[in-house]
């Protein structure tokens, strides 16, 4: 979760404003939302992902399912794919998850009934970057119609994203091999500070004619973590296909949570549909993204100034909330035990935990860990 420079949670100012508006609106009640969610939310959420001028939206071949966070969107998509993709109830369709990935990806698809969950190469530990060749190789050899979970931006946990050129190569292979793209978009806007930039990959795939799913989360970019606001965007060949897909997703939603929670969707819909509030939101998002970018550059410059062994450009080249520092488990143990700095055994740090007050301490500690422990 995002933290301010004082190390505190941050409720976005635009969210506070909109919540006040909702509280003051006596015409609002607590009635059930439709099964697929608040219509204004679904349409606006998909529009955010695909862009105002998206041809898919113009051609009316986009649908949205309001879900319980990004996780909920992933689960509805996974349940639908297990029932209807690559045959009927084909639990044998391989599902590919990056190595590493968010651990819950595996569980989501497993609990949805998929029996063959595989990994695809992603992180090159030696070079501390994307293992593009490994990734493309895995795609070349994946069985036709395999499902690939792609991180739209700010890969969790490595912070390492393909460049636009690399995404083009990925898309070309996926198209040729008939692989299904399931995007996980949890950080749109939060990664680079620009909604459009962070959605580039998803939009490129749409422009290449793919049918795809995109699980969107508004937990981070709206700071609405505990309201569970997510959207499963469905892009299909035409309106008729999308309608039928949505009708079947409705059945899945009905036995999972019946209809989604109202509060978070109202906040997002109200914000996105007002030009003024939308601009305010973009400003709030940029504030968060900029602080993280600042912490990255400050950490890197301190490590380079200290002469810490190794290269540290990956700190600023990586993007989003997390960074794979490259620290090994022993060095991590040192950080935790001796310096009381908590990070994952994988060397992953949450950049949001850095503040102007602790930067020096963290940099010095990393320096000690790297020089003392091999």
């Amino acid at each position, binding site marked *: *979760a995002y933290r301010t420079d004082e190390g505190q949670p941050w409720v976005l100012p635009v969210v506070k404003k909109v919540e006040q508006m909702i509280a003051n609106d006596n015409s609002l009640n607590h*009635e059930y939302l439709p099964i697929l969610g608040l219509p204004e939310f679904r349409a606006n959420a998909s529009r955010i992902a695909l862009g105002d001028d998206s041809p898919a939206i113009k051609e009316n071949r986009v649908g949205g399912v309001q879900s*319980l*966070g990004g996780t909920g969107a992933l689960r509805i998509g996974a349940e639908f794919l297990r029932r209807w993709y690559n045959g009927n109830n084909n639990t044998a369709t391989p599902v590919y998850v990056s190595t590493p990935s968010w651990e819950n990806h595996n569980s989501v698809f497993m*609990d949805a009934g998929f029996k063959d969950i595989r990994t695809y190469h992603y992180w090159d530990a030696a070079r501390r970057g994307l293992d593009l060749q490994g990734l493309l190789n895995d795609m070349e050899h994946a069985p036709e119609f395999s499902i690939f979970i792609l991180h739209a931006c700010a890969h969790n946990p490595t912070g390492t994203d393909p460049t636009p050129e690399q995404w083009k190569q990925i898309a070309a292979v996926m198209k040729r091999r008939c692989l299904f793209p399931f995007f996980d978009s949890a950080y749109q806007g939060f990664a680079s500070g620009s909604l459009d930039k962070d959605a580039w990959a998803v939009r490129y795939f749409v422009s290449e004619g793919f049918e795809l799913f995109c699980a969107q989360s508004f937990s981070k970019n709206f700071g609405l*973590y505990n309201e569970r606001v997510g959207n499963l965007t469905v892009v299909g060949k035409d309106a008729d296909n999308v309608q*039928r897909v949505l009708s079947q997703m409705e059945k899945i939603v009905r*036995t999972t949570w*019946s209809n989604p*929670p109202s509060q978070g969707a109202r906040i997002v819909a109200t914000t996105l549909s007002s030009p003024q509030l939308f601009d305010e939101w973009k400003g709030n998002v940029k504030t968060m993204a900029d602080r993280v970018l600042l912490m990255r550059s400050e950490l890197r410059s301190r490590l380079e100034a200290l002469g810490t062994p190794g290269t540290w450009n990956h700190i600023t080249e990586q993007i989003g909330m997390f960074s794979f520092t490259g620290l090994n488990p022993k060095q991590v143990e040192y950080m935790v035990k001796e310096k009381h700095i908590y990070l994952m055994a994988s060397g992953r740090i949450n950049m949001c935990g850095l503040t102007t007050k602790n930067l020096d301490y963290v940099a010095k500690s990393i320096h000690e860990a790297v020089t003392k422990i091999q």
Partner: protein
Amino acid sequence: SSWWSHVEMGPPDPILGVTEAYRRDTNSKKMNLGVGAYRDDNGKPYVLNCVRKAEAMIASKKMDKEYLPIVGLADFTRASAELALGENSEAFKSGRYVTVQGISGTGSLRIGANFLQRFFKASRDVYLPKPSWGNHTPIFRDAGMQLQAYRYYDPKTCSLDFSGAMEDISKIPEKSIILLHACAHNPTGVDPRQEQWKELAAMVKKRNLLVYFDMAYQGFASGDINRDAWAVRHFIEQGINIVLSQSFAKNMGLYGERAGAFTVICSDAEEAKRVESQLKILIRPMYSNPPMNGARIASMILNTPELRKEWLIEVKSMADRIISMRTQLVSNLKKEGSSHNWQHITDQIGMFCFTGLKPEQVERLIKEFSIYMTKDGRISVAGVTSSSVGYLAHAIHQVTK
């Protein structure tokens, strides 16, 4: 071509279809009796005063929006358990239970269904009363369970087929799962009397069945939260370790906020901890952690004495309005000159009433009178008002005389 060419159009939701047809109707006298949500005497949705007050209190606290734990808001789950079990419950006081926050009733039922599928290896069979809420069957099916039925509603008398139920339950294979509606049976409104509940408890105990209670209307049925939870509490006192799903959609009017809870009564607190750990593993890949808003409101109400008091009064007034509509409907039918026995309308309890109307009669009510209900003759009494009850009685008399 599309990946989805072979995907069939899903069937329209039967209950939503009723509302959609109602919306299209231009008759000024139209009535929507399909809605499963409370309406006030003006036919409007009702936001409880205690809910508004709780919301104001919450807003003033300026809380953050950090993720809840996977199992939900602790103040909420504890208060939900206490509400269902009773503060003097031995099971509650000893801590031999686990309650997790669920996405209202449906989400809580689904967590339970998935939990049973994974950990109740003795049987795949879930026995539902005939009839039951339409969504029970697909929920358990999607969780990987099989559905069976026991007799419950007697269409000849529009009341409980108690001997039929007892006979069927006596034949249920040991260690099967039986689902019971704690109060205000949906869709019939027919509940067992306390004496009958006692016999049911003895029977399920004898058959060694796992009991799954669905309590979506505590307080909303009789107006008394303790009375509505009597069956749940009695079963537990008889040593039956039930599992329970609760909803706060109706009794707090929190429909769209999705406040609910799933409870497992365990042998001891240590077992409860192990069960909780497995529930977390189930919930995480579904939606990670639950939504805060509804649980926060419900928790504020249950844990703030003045709000709780106000809530109990408001829930009683909702229940009372419904009871009064039942009474007025029967007296109006008599005034119309109907010779049928309509006693079941006042004998039944809760939001719904199984009128006993046949599909052709329902069809006429819709087409000739613009009165909308589901084909099984179920009406939502909550949709009746003192200004429309006369029209309803008139219409029912016309199609049944």
